[in-house]
Structure formats: C-alpha cells, structure tokens
C-alpha cells in the first residue's frame, strides 16, 4: 500500500522543475488506480483504457502549470481523464454520430471482456449503465462508484450542481427500469 503524500507537498514538487518528475511519479502512485478505473468505466475496453490512461498522463505532465490549485489535485486529474476519455469515444464514433450512440458498441466490448461465470446481476447493472447518455453515465459513475460530492463533480464536469442532481436522478430511474425489465 502506497503511503499517502500530502497534496500541498505534491503540488510544490510539481511546480518545481527540478522535482517535477519525482512529484509526477508520486502523483501517479497515489491517484493512478482511481483514475484508471474512472477511465475504464467510461471506455469499457482494456486496451482503450490503457491508451486513454497514457494520454491522460501526458496531458497532466504537460499542463501541470495550468493547475491553479483552486480545487484538489485529484479533481483536476478526474477532469483531464474525463476529457481524454470523451475524446477517445468521439474518435470512435462515426462522422456526425453522437458518442451517446456508442452504447451498443460498448455493451459488445463489455460482453467480450466480462469474466466468465460473472454474476448475472453485475452484467445487467453494467448494461443498464451503458444505455445511459454519456454525461449521465459519467455523473452516475462519479457519484456511485467514486462517491464524490455534487460540488466535486461540478468542478470535474463544469456543470451546475442542480444539473448534476437532475442527471443523477434520471440515471437512477433509467437504471431501475432497465433492471426491472431484464431481471428474471
């Protein structure tokens, strides 16, 4: 288990060119797993998640000076990772096709990568999430899996707290009705 480094210390290291690389490695050790799973839940595929995670690392290191320290480092990492994941999905969508229409493609990917003998309820729940519009899905993931507050999600997505609450409510309702429909 990695020892947690204070955010202030990490930030000082990242701002100091002579200690930036060391600070960046520590940052990845501290938050890399959380960010990886956030990306994986958006893009679903193993290879896709690896590519997006790599791109996120490059963006984070290259733009560290743009982090003003208003929010937490983790919130900023979530923001960069979310943007990279969305960009990855946009590249996969056909011309004039919305990324929201990628649900079926992502469900196929889930089917291919899901572990054998996986609990059926887990698969149904994941498929329910993939029927959600991407923005609702991201809000749901951040709230349900990562247990972030609406204020933190607002900082990541750039949406208002009220919009996020509405998104989460609609997402929960849709997931419920999907599960009702597909559970035996």
């Amino acid at each position, binding site marked *: 288990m990695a020892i947690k480094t204070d955010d202030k210390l990490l930030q000082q290291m990242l701002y100091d060119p002579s200690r930036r690389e060391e600070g960046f*490695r520590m940052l*990845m050790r501290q938050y*890399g*797993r959380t960010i990886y799973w956030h990306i994986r*839940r958006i893009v679903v595929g193993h290879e896709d998640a690896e590519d997006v995670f790599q791109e996120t690392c490059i963006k984070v290191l*290259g733009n560290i000076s743009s982090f003003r320290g208003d929010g937490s480092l983790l919130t900023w990492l979530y923001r960069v990772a979310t943007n990279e994941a969305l960009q990855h999905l946009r590249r996969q969508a056909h011309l004039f096709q919305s990324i929201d229409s990628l649900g079926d493609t992502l469900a196929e990917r889930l089917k291919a*990568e899901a572990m054998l003998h996986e*609990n059926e309820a887990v698969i149904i729940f994941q498929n329910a999430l993939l029927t959600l519009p991407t923005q609702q899905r991201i809000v749901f993931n951040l709230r349900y899996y990562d247990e972030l507050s609406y204020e933190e999600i607002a900082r990541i997505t750039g949406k208002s707290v009220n919009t996020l609450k509405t998104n989460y409510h609609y997402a929960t309702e849709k997931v419920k009705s999907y599960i009702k429909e597909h559970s035996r």
Partner: protein
Amino acid sequence: MNDLLNDIGKKMPYQESEDYLDRLLVQAAQKAIMHEHKRKSSRRLAMMIISAAAVVLLVVGIGLSVTGHGSKTVIATQQVESPMDQFLNSLSEEELAQLPYYEIEEIPEY
C-alpha cells in the same frame, strides 16, 4: 434496485491484477516523462532555428543597406545645415571681418 445494488456492491465485471496496474502506472508515468523531454527539446530546437533565421535576415539586411547604390548619397544629401552655418554662409567677407572675435582667454568666467 437497492437490493440488487447491495447484492453486487461496486463490483465490476472485469478485473485487473495488482501487478498489471503497478506496471501500467510506472510505464505510463515513464512514457509521459520521455514525451515531455522530447516536446521540450523540439521546442528548444524550433527556437534555435527561428533565432538563427532572424540573425541571418538581420545580417543580410545590414549588408544590403551598406552595399546598396546611392544609399550613402541619400544620407549625405539628407544632412541639414544648422541655422548658425546658414547665417555665416550668408555673410560677405567684409561682414565676416566685422564679427566680434574672441580668444578663448577673453571669454569671461561666470
């Protein structure tokens, strides 16, 4: 739905080993650092090329202005006589002789 969520918790249908994640974090960080080094060195190279081009342009510009025909003449004809020179030139020989003449020593101190 709550029963179902309690049942499955936050389990994902796919898993990655700790070894894989450890390796991914180290490799991705290393690649990002190398990428940043490359980006910086290519930016430095671009700056050097731009500076060199600017110096070459400056040298060529100076060379052209020095060797260019008539450029010196233009500078010479553009010189303007001072009002004092104009006044002295307008005087005749006699008028010039009548001008008060001071030796350096005669200039009073003040």
